[in-house]
């Protein structure tokens, strides 16, 4: 290896500075939001809160914790995420398994049916009319059913199944297992890695989703916490914490959003270090095979 030239050493230095800036720009908003959530109103108003809380207090957290609507919506998010992920996993696994069978007659058509929907979709209004006329409004099914299969996830899973050794399945079939038995007792136990990845993909996206609920739910007690947060941001509701005392209300105004942002993203931030690499490998697999 030749000694790096001077200009390259300069470049390395500049590169380090640029990447440090990227890290700061990415992380600073989080740090600032967290600091705000613990800070006193007047310090926020004065623009004094940067990285550390000023006038540390937990008043806003107490207010949010006492708001029964917040907990209700938080619970809804958990419920919707679980139900929608289960439905999505069942449908995606079944279809991906079918598509992975290369000998299957009509396989190309089945793949095409799914892939075409990546390029052309019905649009907001027909979907809205459909979900409404199916009577799914105000139920978890309005969230779970219309998004039950993500074609991207489907293709990732199909690629994984295609790489499993076929001999194992054939042997199991000769030993008398039906196709269902092979899928449940041979294929799925061998596919823990991809199943875990898919569960993560789906649950993170359902946890984060807000628009289906916003569109199809009419009552605030049915909303997930993302819509609760959205209503806070747009200033659409204040009814939820009508009981709060006046002195507390000024505290609320400035940083109740910060507290809700922190609490809503908390589960994601907690699992993030563990799940991140699954996502990266999933995306790569999808890109290579898709």
């Amino acid at each position, binding site marked *: 290896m030749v000694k790096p030239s001077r200009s390259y050493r300069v470049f390395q230095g500049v590169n380090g500075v640029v990447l440090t800036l990227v*890290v700061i720009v990415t992380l600073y908003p989080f740090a600032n939001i967290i600091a705000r959530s613990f800070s006193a109103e007047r310090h926020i108003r004065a623009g004094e809160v940067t990285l550390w809380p000023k006038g540390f207090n937990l008043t806003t957290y107490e207010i949010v914790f006492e708001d029964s609507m917040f907990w209700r919506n938080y619970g809804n998010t958990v419920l919707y995420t679980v139900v929608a992920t289960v439905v999505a996993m069942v449908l995606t696994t079944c*279809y991906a398994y079918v598509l992975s069978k290369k000998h299957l*007659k009509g396989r190309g058509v089945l793949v095409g049916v799914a892939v075409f*929907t990546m390029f052309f979709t019905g649009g*907001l209004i027909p979907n809205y009319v459909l979900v409404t006329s199916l009577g799914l409004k105000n139920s978890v099914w309005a969230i779970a*059913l219309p998004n039950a299969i993500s074609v991207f996830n489907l293709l990732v899973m199909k690629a994984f199944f295609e790489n499993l050794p076929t001999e194992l399945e054939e042997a199991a079939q000769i030993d008398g297992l*039906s196709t269902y038995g092979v899928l449940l007792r041979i294929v799925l136990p061998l596919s823990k890695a991809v199943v875990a990845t898919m569960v993560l993909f789906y649950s993170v996206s359902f946890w984060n989703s807000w628009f289906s609920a916003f569109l199809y739910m009419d009552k605030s007690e049915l909303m997930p916490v993302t819509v609760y947060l959205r209503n806070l*941001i747009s200033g659409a509701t204040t009814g939820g914490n009508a009981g709060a005392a006046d002195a507390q209300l000024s505290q609320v105004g400035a940083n109740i959003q910060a507290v809700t942002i922190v609490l809503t993203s908390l589960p994601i931030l907690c699992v*993030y270090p563990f799940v991140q690499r699954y996502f990266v490998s999933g*995306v790569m697999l999808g890109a290579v095979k898709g």
Partner: protein
Amino acid sequence: MSTSTTPAPPGTEDPPPARAAPRRRGNRTPARTGWRRALRRDWQLYSLAILPLLFFLVFRYLPMLGNVIAFRRFEPGGSIFGEEWVGLRYVQMFLSDPTFWQVFRNTLWIGGLTLLFCFPVPIVLALLLNEVRRRSLKRFVQSVSYLPHFLSIVIVAGITMQMLASDGPVNHVLGWFGHEPIRFIQEPEWFRTIYVGSEIWQTAGWGTILYLAALTTIDEDLYEAARIDGANRWQQIWHVTLPGIRPTMVTLLILNIGTFMAVGFEKVLLLYNPLTYPTADVISTYVYRAGVESNSFSYAAAIGLFEAIIGLVLITSANQLSRRTVGTSLW
């Protein structure tokens, strides 16, 4: 083709391949089996596909057909395909609607700016990351830059608004330079900057994944050869690195062009307000307001269909163009 195949009695399943063989003698196409036999052999597999197919038919293809309400008068509570034909009435309506042309221009603006800024940033970031020698440092920067991708769009919008609030950090910094606080969220001229900026913040890191993967596949020998030919660092990037990741770049560019018209509907919906409509209102948000909020379903569906068709035309022509010029295409 299965004129002579009668269902074999149970227990005598095996003969079919042998029986089928003579009929295909001299026929070079790979073995094709009849539907009846495929169904008999794989009915359990097909049965697994029923529910997913039902999903696609009901929730993906039915809405596509449902677009006919753009040409029919729809009445709430009536058939999802509408009540009677009205021809191109709704198309003419939106074509002569000044608001439509405003949201059309806004869509082109925001879509164009997003493409211009959000497409190259991950490439540059990936090239920079690729030059980092310390693996741990590289990992750390990557992990941090992926993080915003995992957050709900609602949280991103919330953070954006907090950062740009009159008492937020951005105005705080402006204060150091003696600048009056700017009410970013209320000013139409700031909307595009805010939109593109937050988009870069959220997607840039995640976008590097595929480029970094593509970079690892470039043959080290090519760099060696380039060095021997006297190429400096920049020339190596220009002549080896960039051509090496070109297929990835083209693929992602086609995909980006395909979603050009569908510019971040949810984010615009979260970030805009009546004050910023002049620059922020895009086709999809107008469709939402016209359809869901004002109940003009047929009118909104007509606009939505127009948007979807432009999107489809864009992606197919981008695909064609890139197949002809650089030989890479999605299909």
